């Protein structure tokens, strides 16, 4: 095999996509003016059920899903435009984000008809939020090593174990928990199943884990012989490795993998003024060139997804390059427009020093969440035929 490298073809944009973009911008400007939110430097920081419901009412959640499940039959590229506008504006999207991005599509693809009917319309309305249930205390990058166990019982399953880094478990409605239901087999990918956990009804312990900023986003979720009904199983027992990996292209290729520090870039441009010196102009230009190219690659993946492809290696490239770019924005900004980073008081309009502070404190997470840089590179290496 001759290795050619990976291509990111230019997607054909559907007609009317710029009108959609203008619509979203108009909505966001009005909402911002009405004080719906203060811009966030970190896309997962803003949780607003009210805002999510407004997006649902506009038809901007579950966009690509069939209308019988509350969806809007739009293309992945239209969804892309909506999500990038939301992120660039720093809108509070974290309530519905995971549900709209990956839990809904997972249920659409593998869920039972009853599960789809019960849940998808609520996600599309912006009233139902999901957490990811993959990582465990002893299983991070090595996902196949999970120990959380689901044993068959007379009237369902008994789940025992713990999940960690569960963002917003204390506020969300459901988690999709990856559990061991059988032996792993030679390829270590067998015996895994996914279950719907209902945070509002099931007897689970949700213990807060504060991050280094002192914020409560993460949780530990503990199952102590939790009995769930048989209809909580998603898809087929023991065949969930493929289900899990099918979520990853969605999770890793989107604009949240290179826009996390976009607010800082905006404030850097403002701090340098309309006539920057050569050094500042060069730094801003370089970051812009990186950003424009990453966006093009990410948009290309939306086009591949729309065409029914599963571009996991291309998604890993976007995540690897994109999250390292996010980190670089902060490191370059602090050198070009030096200021002591200082967190602002809550409620104040964030200035350059405050956005820089938030970005620096969040930096370690960008190259860890949704698969570490090292895992991304191993996936790319496999795509090159090296593993």
């Amino acid at each position: 095999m001759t290795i050619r490298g990976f291509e990111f073809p230019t997607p054909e944009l559907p007609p009317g996509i710029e009108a959609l973009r203008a619509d979203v911008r108009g909505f966001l400007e009005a909402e911002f003016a009405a004080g719906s939110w203060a811009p966030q430097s970190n896309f997962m920081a803003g949780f607003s059920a009210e805002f999510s419901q407004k997006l649902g009412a506009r038809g901007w959640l579950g966009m690509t899903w069939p209308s019988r499940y509350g969806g809007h039959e739009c293309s992945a590229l239209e969804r892309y435009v909506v999500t990038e506008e939301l992120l660039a504006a720093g809108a509070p999207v974290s309530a519905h984000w995971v549900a709209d991005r990956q839990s809904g599509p997972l249920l659409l693809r593998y869920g039972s008809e009853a599960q789809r009917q019960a849940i998808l319309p609520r996600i599309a309305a912006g009233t139902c939020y999901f957490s990811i249930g993959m990582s465990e205390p002893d299983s991070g990058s090595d996902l196949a090593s999970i120990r959380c166990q689901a044993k068959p019982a007379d009237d369902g399953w008994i789940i025992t174990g713990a999940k960690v880094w569960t963002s917003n478990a204390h506020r969300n409605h459901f988690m999709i928990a990856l559990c061991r239901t059988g032996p792993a087999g030679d390829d270590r990918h067998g015996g895994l199943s996914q279950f719907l956990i209902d945070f509002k009804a099931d007897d689970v312990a949700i213990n807060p884990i504060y991050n280094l900023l002192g914020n409560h986003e993460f949780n530990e979720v503990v199952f102590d012989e939790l009995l769930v009904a048989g209809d909580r199983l998603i898809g087929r027992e023991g065949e969930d490795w493929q289900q899990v990996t099918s979520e990853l292209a969605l999770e890793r290729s989107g604009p949240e993998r290179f826009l996390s520090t976009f607010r800082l870039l905006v404030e850097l441009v403002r701090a340098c003024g309309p006539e920057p010196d050569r050094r500042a102009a060069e730094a801003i230009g370089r970051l812009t060139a990186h950003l424009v190219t990453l966006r093009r690659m990410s948009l290309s993946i939306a086009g591949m997804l729309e065409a029914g492809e599963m571009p996991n290696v291309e998604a890993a490239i976007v995540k690897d390059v994109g999250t390292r770019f996010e980190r670089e924005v902060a490191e370059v900004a602090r050198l070009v427009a030096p200021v002591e980073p200082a967190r602002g008081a809550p409620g104040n309009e964030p200035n350059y020093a405050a956005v820089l502070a938030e970005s620096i404190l969040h930096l370690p997470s960008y190259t860890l969440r949704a698969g570490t840089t090292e895992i991304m590179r191993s996936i790319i290496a496999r795509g090159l035929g090296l593993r």
Partner: protein
Amino acid sequence: MSRSHSIISEVAERLFRDLAEPEVINRAEEGIWPDALWRSLEQAGLTLAPVPETAGGGGGTFADAVAVLHVAGRFAAPIPLAETMLAGWVLAGSRLGVPKGPLTFAPVDATEAVTFEPEGGLEWRLSGTAHRVPWARDAGHVVVLGEAGEASVVALVEASLLRPEAGRNLAGEPRDTIHFDGLVVGRDKVAAAGPGMGRHSLFLRGALARAAQMSGALERLLELSVGYAGERRQFGRAIAKFQAIQHYLAALAGHAATARAAVDGATSALAGNPEAAVFAVAVAKARAGEAAGEGAAIAHQVHGAMGFTYEHSLHHATRRLWSWRDEFGGESVWNIRLGEQVAATGADALWSLIAER
């Protein structure tokens, strides 16, 4: 570029694979013109790909030209392909005949100027100096981009009249100096430059051409490095089995992919409004140039001392990357232009500027 390699890329690939072998590249560096390669490309209509058929060209688009240049870069083709395409495009657009054979244009540096003054009633006298003119000594004709008063003018000059001073880039490709002082050119060889065909426009297209060549050369680095890592054994196994090497190669794949994506973006933009094209070409040249340096370093690290020998052909790609990234403006030139545009547009319009591209 479309995903399915276009027909034109496939034709180009076949020719380069057969006729741009490492020995041909080495001989070209010693000054031996690769005649068989050139003639085959010319016969296939690739040397004038973006020139209209009525002017004797291939009748293709700039996207076709970029596709061919990407392949040419992969094979380190030692010929003035980009230069001939661009010179031919200007000649046809300025209503001058397009001669056969390799062409180049001067000046390439947009800060250099050649002035044209009327000489008697029938001729023009040229003055000025052009540095680092690609392939001047091998070209049959040089297209001179100059100014007569306020107007942009173009002259077609037989290269034999010019006696260029020889220079080379790091890959041994000719980059010569031409002194025009006193050269007199007949009226029938001079014309007003076609719309959008002045030296700034050529500088822009030259930058895109080099970016396209770099994106091809980066793919060559990936191909060579993956192949070498699979063959080379140390500590009892192929070095490709070491995670450190795998991660280097994954990063190299990222550099190659980003360069290509940036070039594709600029190629699409070139068909649209001129302002968007300048922005997108700046992105492409700066991004590909940065990837070139990073990618070359990885490829050499993976190849070890073997890749540092003249015998190994890795340097055909890496020495070109180290040259091309600085031709038609290096990263700092284009990044500063981008940064100035972003700053002038303002912080609050940054997202609009990016999302329009």
